[in-house]
């Protein structure tokens, strides 16, 4: 059985990629399994400078999921390359995905250029979709022409493939994906988290310090599938599917909807061995659905309509 997929010129041993912000730089998970079994991994969203992120409570439980409002806490790109990459390299030998955030086009470009020069990185994932920082990130992901501007500027500055990570908090995600494709994007990653709120009824105040947070986990899986479905119809560049994936059968369902690779986020937080469990279960689920080569099923559910 063949679980390999090819993504933006890279061959992945399997389509599994832990999602940005849920896997640190990999080494937190190496107590639980050899993380070299992963297809790749996406590092925590990185900005040009050090950020604390949001104040106050940053996580709330929901039915079948969670809200987070971390707000892009990271030490800035130079620290990540100098301090985190050597630690990541000790436990992960494959090319990783660099998740990049910014508050201006110039910042996206500056961070992307630095990661472009790193051997540790195979793909640049441009996050124009973080719902947890005001004024930044998502502002570029909610408007097709702004998303295209970021795509074009980054593409011009780098050699590595550029994947645009999009927000589901928009009216027409396919239009934004198409604008990114036209501006030269090599792939689309979707979805980031959905905006949500919880109230602390004792305090009669929003539970999260930031008021709103991003919903992820099994609750968002069908939303992610719907968006992958519509972007697959509109674009021809590969899609990294993300949102609510918990099992090997979710991976296959997401691929049938149009994903070439699949990111797993919140599941890692509640089961540190989630990706290992999924990778180990893939062959038996492939057998169940009579799949010999995983890459054969990408977009399979579109057969009649495309």
């Amino acid at each position, binding site marked *: 059985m063949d679980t390999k997929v090819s993504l933006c010129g890279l061959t992945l041993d399997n389509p599994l990629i832990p999602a940005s*912000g849920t896997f640190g730089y990999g080494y937190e998970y190496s107590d*639980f399994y050899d993380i070299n079994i992963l297809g790749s991994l996406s590092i*925590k969203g990185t900005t040009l400078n050090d950020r*604390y992120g949001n*104040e106050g409570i*940053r996580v709330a439980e929901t039915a079948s999921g969670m809200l987070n409002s*971390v707000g892009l806490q990271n030490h800035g790109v130079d620290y990540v390359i100098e301090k985190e990459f050597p630690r990541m390299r000790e436990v992960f030998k494959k090319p990783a995905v660099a998740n990049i955030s910014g508050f201006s086009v110039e910042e996206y470009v500056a961070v992307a250029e630095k990661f472009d020069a790193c051997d540790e990185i195979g793909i640049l994932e441009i996050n124009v979709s973080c719902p947890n920082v005001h004024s930044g990130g998502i502002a570029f992901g909610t408007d097709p022409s702004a998303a295209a501007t970021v795509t074009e500027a980054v593409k011009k500055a780098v050699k590595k493939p550029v994947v645009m990570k999009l927000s589901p908090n928009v009216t027409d995600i396919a239009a934004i994906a198409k604008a990114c494709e036209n501006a030269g994007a090599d792939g689309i990653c979707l979805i980031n988290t959905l905006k949500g709120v919880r109230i602390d009824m004792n305090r009669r105040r929003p539970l999260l310090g930031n008021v709103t947070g991003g919903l992820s986990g099994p609750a968002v899986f069908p939303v992610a599938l719907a968006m992958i479905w519509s972007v697959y119809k509109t674009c021809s560049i590969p899609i990294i599917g993300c949102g609510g994936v918990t099992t090997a059968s979710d991976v296959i369902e997401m691929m049938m909807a149009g994903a070439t690779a699949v990111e797993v986020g919140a599941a890692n937080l509640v*089961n*540190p061995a989630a990706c290992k469990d999924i990778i180990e279960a893939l062959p038996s689920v492939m057998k169940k659905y009579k799949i010999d080569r995983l890459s054969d099923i990408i977009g399979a559910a579109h057969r009649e309509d495309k």
Partner: protein
Amino acid sequence: MKRIDNFTVKSVEKLTSDIYKTLLSGDTSAVTAPGQFVNIAVDGFYLRRPISVCDVEGDELTVVYRTVGGGTERLSNYLPGDTVSVVSGLGNGFNTERNISSPLLIGGGVGVPPLVLLAKALYKKGLRPKALLGFRNASDVILTDELGKYCDVYVATEDGSFGHKGFVTGLLGEAGGDYIYACGPEPMLKAILSASELPAELSFESRMACGMGACLTCTCHTTSGARRICSDGPVFEREDIIWTQR
């Protein structure tokens, strides 16, 4: 080294109207220091629940917790023989390798449980700690017998229905001691530091998702920058602490 394992529920004992003690059996090898915690998956709830390790003996691990919401309520309803998934070996824990002779162990409410394993560890090193415990009232008092095996135990209750009347800080004056280990609600921790100049390490709480350092949802400010309560803590030295509204 952190681990994820299935543990078997051995017993569930009701200690007070809303505090339970659950004995679990499984691979406890990841628990290496008192003050560490486990992250327990509870049926029907998406996130795990972080609970301090109260005691470890061979393959048996004890947790003591108050039922404050659905997750801890559900945990208290497990029956002997049931299986729970436990992530263990989490947090830095208390440092018992210090050159001290008269440690004070200060706990409030469900901050008391981790002091049991701490007291045991210090006792094994030949020390006789003093435990200063604060509770709301007499019916809330827990774990004094367990701690009594390793410590001299002093209790304060807010209404005076057991021991000293008032807050646990009221016991500090006469206790002496040369080092403070504390776990409890933040106002209590804050009061301890105002009442005493002794060197101290304090255990903090935060809402958590992963409990193992990956998600950055438990971050707090410290004098050395942003730190994760789950993995850089939950225990911080008094010099590290910056009090903020959380």
